[in-house]
């Protein structure tokens, strides 16, 4: 889970990492009662994507009025297809130099890559390669600290001291919170070597949630900010709205095949609404997952057709079809044509069940997509 900057900073602060004083606001009306530290401030739109400065959702503000203006401009803005639903208003940190530090789980090396640079504030890709220092440590707090000390030793100045101190603290967080990435960019460094985390990017491991109560609590407390992870935690499968304006609801299993189908539909100029890996193997004779998904799809204002694509290697399509027809009847408010493409185990049994349930059945994906196109052409709402 890629944490919003505000949540990442809150979590880092709980581990003794210095961050600028800041608060999060989700509505302009909260501003009046917000407990702001003394200004000037920087108002930062909270989305889980980079390039926020370029997108205009990070703005400086010298007065409370300017803060209010920035909040009004940023809240509700759409960046990279996502609506900005929260801003963090924090104290500006001035008269500092900038550096870069990150701890990254290096999948190929099977360890933690420690990356430092005496420049910061821009994308790591934009930093001059010969000025980046990095090495891989074992996944162990002391090993990471050792690696940090060795790398930071390259800069025998205030910056080096700051990088070393920040890195040693981040090592603890990385191991204790089972992180996949912790990046502080920029790390603000004062002349005396003291430092504060200007920005914070923290990616945690969804698979470790069961033994990470702090992160689990954060997710449960603010489920709306992390809808995908919250659904996974509560329901045990993956559902992502990829385009709120999408016209095609997808009922699919398997992450790879679901992603591929979305790609192919988009290439044809079609507008899929969602990604879904329902994991038919986890349905166990219960239509509950299907009912949940169909209910969520009723939120798609422009949804006009449902496309089902299941390759049943192990799943029994007869049973799947019975559950599907039950779920479609249960969620009758999702009143759209249903096109299914099914292949594999139990297809002969599935056919009459789906026909009786009013589902158009295909075994060829191209033919099913052609039918979806036809439906979209002839039934504008």
């Amino acid at each position, binding site marked *: 889970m890629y944490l919003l900057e505000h949540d990442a900073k809150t979590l880092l602060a709980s581990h003794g990492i210095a961050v600028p004083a800041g608060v999060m606001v989700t509505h302009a009306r909260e501003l009046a009662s917000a407990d702001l530290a003394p200004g000037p401030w920087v108002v930062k739109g909270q989305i889980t994507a980079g390039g926020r400065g370029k997108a205009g959702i990070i703005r400086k503000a010298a007065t409370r009025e300017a803060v209010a203006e920035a909040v009004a401009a940023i809240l509700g803005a759409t960046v990279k297809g996502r609506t900005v639903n929260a801003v963090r208003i924090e104290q500006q940190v001035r008269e500092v130099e900038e550096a870069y530090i990150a701890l990254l*789980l290096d*999948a190929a090396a099977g360890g933690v890559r420690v990356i430092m640079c005496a420049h910061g504030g821009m994308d790591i890709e934009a930093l001059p390669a010969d000025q980046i220092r990095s090495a891989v440590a074992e996944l162990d707090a002391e090993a990471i600290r050792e690696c940090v000390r060795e790398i930071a030793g390259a800069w025998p100045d205030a910056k080096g001291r700051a990088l070393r101190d920040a890195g040693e603290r981040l090592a603890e967080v990385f191991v204790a919170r089972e992180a996949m990435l912790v990046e502080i960019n920029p790390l603000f460094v004062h002349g005396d070597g003291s430092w504060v985390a200007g920005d914070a990017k923290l990616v945690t491991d969804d698979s470790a949630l069961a033994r990470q109560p702090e992160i689990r609590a954060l997710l449960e407390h603010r489920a709306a900010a992390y809808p995908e992870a919250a659904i996974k935690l509560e329901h045990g499968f993956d559902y992502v709205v990829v385009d709120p304006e999408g016209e095609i609801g997808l009922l699919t299993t398997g992450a790879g095949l679901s992603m591929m189908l979305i790609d192919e539909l988009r290439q044809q100029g079609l507008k899929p609404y969602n990604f879904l890996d329902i994991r038919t193997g986890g349905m166990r004779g219960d239509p509950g997952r299907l009912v949940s998904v169909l209910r969520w799809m009723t939120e798609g204002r422009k949804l006009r057709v449902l496309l089902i694509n299941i390759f049943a290697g192990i799943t029994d399509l007869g049973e799947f079809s019975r559950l599907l027809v039950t779920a479609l009847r249960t969620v009758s408010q999702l009143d759209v044509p249903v096109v299914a493409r099914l292949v594999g185990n139990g297809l002969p049994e599935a056919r009459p069940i789906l026909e009786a349930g009013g589902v158009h059945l295909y075994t060829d994906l191209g033919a099913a997509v052609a039918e979806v196109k036809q439906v979209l052409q002839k039934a504008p709402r």
Partner: protein
Amino acid sequence: MINPRIDRSTPVIVQGITGRAGRLHSRLMKEYGTNIVGGISPKTDAKEVNGVPLFPDCHAAVRATGATASVILVGAMQLLAAMTEAIEAGIRYVVTPTEGMPVHDAVKALHLTRAADAVWVGASTPGMAVPGVAKLGFLPNDALLHGPLGLMSKSGTLSYESGYRLAQRGVGQSVWVGVGGDPVKGTRYADLIPFYARDAQTEGLLIIGEIGGHEEEDFAQALIAQQFAKPVFALIAGSSAPEGVTMGHAGALVHGSHGSYAAKRAALEAAGARVYATLDDMVNGVCGVLKKH
């Protein structure tokens, strides 16, 4: 060199055989021809499942059967302990289909298997197969066909669909390895290049990739470094996935340019691979090169 070419004599145990998945897949694997010699279940009094004798732990099973491979079907939080038990008992080959293994556990498991010089396929793998001979894991029979194509995949379903469509067109697989959708894993695409380069049956190599991480990029670099001479085909899912959202697989997360479709496509094309944007194009491309039999 990792050699995934299991055969009908490779003795295999199933850890977690009394669970729902364990019962189903031990039967399916056995029916396919896999030499399942034992199951592990510490908590049951039963003597067998699907005609497979049960043992209380891996040590007992290895002593009694000489097993060298294990398919581990236990919960994600128990996976590291189960792998440790298997490796300590002398198992040389572990396949772990379980999804949701904590990533820090996976790092520990990677060191454990490397230190023992054992092969680990997974986690979150659909499994692997030598079609017509034996399979370890879930790969569906409808998609398996003996043939010339080496196949490696992160996704289960997308590889089933690909394997199935290619099989319908008469192009089967030499050795199929699902490397799995997790970011930290036992066997990565690049690890198997030396095997596929030397394997006489393999005439071409297909990787089914997806956004996130840089495994496809590492694979592309290794193709160049090792001067891999057979044709390479690639299908990469997730070109239209939003940034910052995990798309089902724990590894499928793009942040910044890290793990993006464009970076993968560019790296693979620079290594001479044929990269396709749709399943149909991929199937036609592979058939165009390999279908002469």
